[in-house]
């Protein structure tokens, strides 16, 4: 078993009196494609915001690639890439201009060369000189992914990456994620509520319900125990209470 690259230790977030993420403790091994499932308002995005250093935890901490989230957030930032939900980038700039800016902001050496290499890696070089404003949702997502891997992070965080994509776009993104994981050994942490995507892409999953971890296992163990995608859905529904439909926002 490879060593863990992400380790959460009683990670907690509160908004006023409400606990939205409740003492999450689990770890993810290096090289995993991890699917973080949960109903709307379960606390997935809040957890992701903490892990990407965008929000400070109320208590607890996490270690990412050896850097502590609370004590060394800059160390964490150097090791992670992040693709937020609905990232659109700057419409009036070309794909290359957008990427050059974020490469420089990430202090990437030889940014021009790296930008071209990433665009080539994502089969997007022909679009380098085109303005992002004219791109399809799928193409924007591809450039969004490009900005996240410019500095060659060890861990890539994706928040609902397939949200709003058509089936072609979903397939394209899935292939890219798989390539980044297999060819570059990048650990992927993916927030989603699409069970079908989890089954096709992930190597391990966790289910969050009302801020609490209710399930965490490797995907082989899940499929061995529950069978196909439909059974995975059954599993998800069985660990997620019905109240989620009327519950947290």
């Amino acid at each position, binding site marked *: 078993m490879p060593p863990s690259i992400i380790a959460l230790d009683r990670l907690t977030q509160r908004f006023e009196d409400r606990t939205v993420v409740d003492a999450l403790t689990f770890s993810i091994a290096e090289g995993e494609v991890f699917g973080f499932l949960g109903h709307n308002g379960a606390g997935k995005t809040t957890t992701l*915001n903490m892990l990407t250093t965008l929000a400070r935890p109320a208590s607890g901490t996490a270690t990412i690639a050896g850097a502590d989230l609370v004590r060394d957030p800059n160390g964490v*930032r150097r090791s992670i890439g*992040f693709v937020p939900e*609905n990232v*659109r980038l700057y419409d*009036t700039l070309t794909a290359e*201009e957008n990427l050059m800016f974020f490469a420089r*902001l990430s202090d990437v050496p030889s940014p021009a060369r790296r930008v071209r290499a990433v665009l080539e890696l994502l089969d997007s070089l022909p679009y380098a000189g085109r303005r992002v404003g004219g791109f399809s949702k799928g193409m924007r997502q591809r450039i969004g992914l490009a900005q996240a891997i410019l500095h060659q992070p060890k861990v890539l965080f994706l928040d609902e990456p397939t949200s709003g994509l058509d089936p072609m776009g979903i397939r394209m993104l899935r292939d890219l994620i798989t390539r980044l994981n297999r060819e570059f050994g990048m650990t992927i942490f993916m927030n989603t509520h699409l069970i079908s995507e989890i089954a096709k892409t992930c190597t391990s999953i966790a289910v969050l319900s009302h801020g609490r971890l209710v399930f965490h296992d490797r995907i082989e163990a899940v499929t061995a125990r529950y069978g196909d995608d439909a059974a995975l859905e059954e599993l998800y529904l069985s660990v997620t209470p019905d109240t989620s439909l009327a519950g947290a926002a």
Partner: protein
Amino acid sequence: MSPANLIARQSLRLTLRESTVLVIAALFVVLVLVSAWLGWRATATVNLIFTDAAAFLQSQGRALPPNPVLATSPLSLLRNVAVYVSLIGVLAAIVVGNRLIALDRRSGVLPLYGTRTGDSPAYATGKVLALVALMGTLTGIAAVVSAATLLALPAVPVTAGQWAQFWAFFVLSGLYLLAFGLVALGAAARSRSESVGLLLPVTLWLVLTFVLPSLTGNLLPTASINPVSALAAPPDAAFFQWSAWTFGSVSVAESYRYLSAGLLDFLPEGRLSPAAIPPLATLLIAVVAAFLWALRGLRTLDLTRSDYDV
């Protein structure tokens, strides 16, 4: 290059690609040009008439009266510029300040800054630097156009002291524009919707430019920004004496008007601001307050949110 400088440079590039910003900034520069041309034309015409009249009077052997062009300060020819700064210049500053933040929020890139710069002051510093650069450029263009006009004026020498007043006026105008730009920057960072972020500074501008001066300078709102007529004094009534003294201290537009009139030599002899606080102090306090407002807004900007609320 430091992250703050990178962010400033990127912000400049983005803002200068915005057609709204370009149109309103161009309008301001064109109005300054028109103002300069009108001033130049009027002075040149009066001077031409005087030259013809002088030649005629000399041929008749009669004494020459003084040239009326020389009786007024050449700087007062730029009085319209003060109006354009108060109106279209401030609107340009508000649009620029708003776009500097709104573009980032609309593009959903705030989390990308957050995961790179964290809670360091780089983002706030970069945005303020970009605003200062843009306001400086806008004021600088207006100053160069006006300076060229003064240099081209026939028979009107500008003394070193007047040049100092001239540059002081443009520094003051730059600060005035910066104050509104900072308010817009802060409002765009704090508001949950894009339209409110723009409406807030526009409302403040309307109040400061049209409402407050009617209590501190004259009953007619348009008179408070009219550079052609002399500055209007508050009506001689107890209420207006009181309101001019009280509200004059917060009437930033009125303070700018007094300072401009003083620097451009069109303030009536012996006229003093009726406000409790001197105009320069009011303007400087406004700039500092706007800076703190913008800084607080930028430092508390929620980088986890990738978009405006809808």
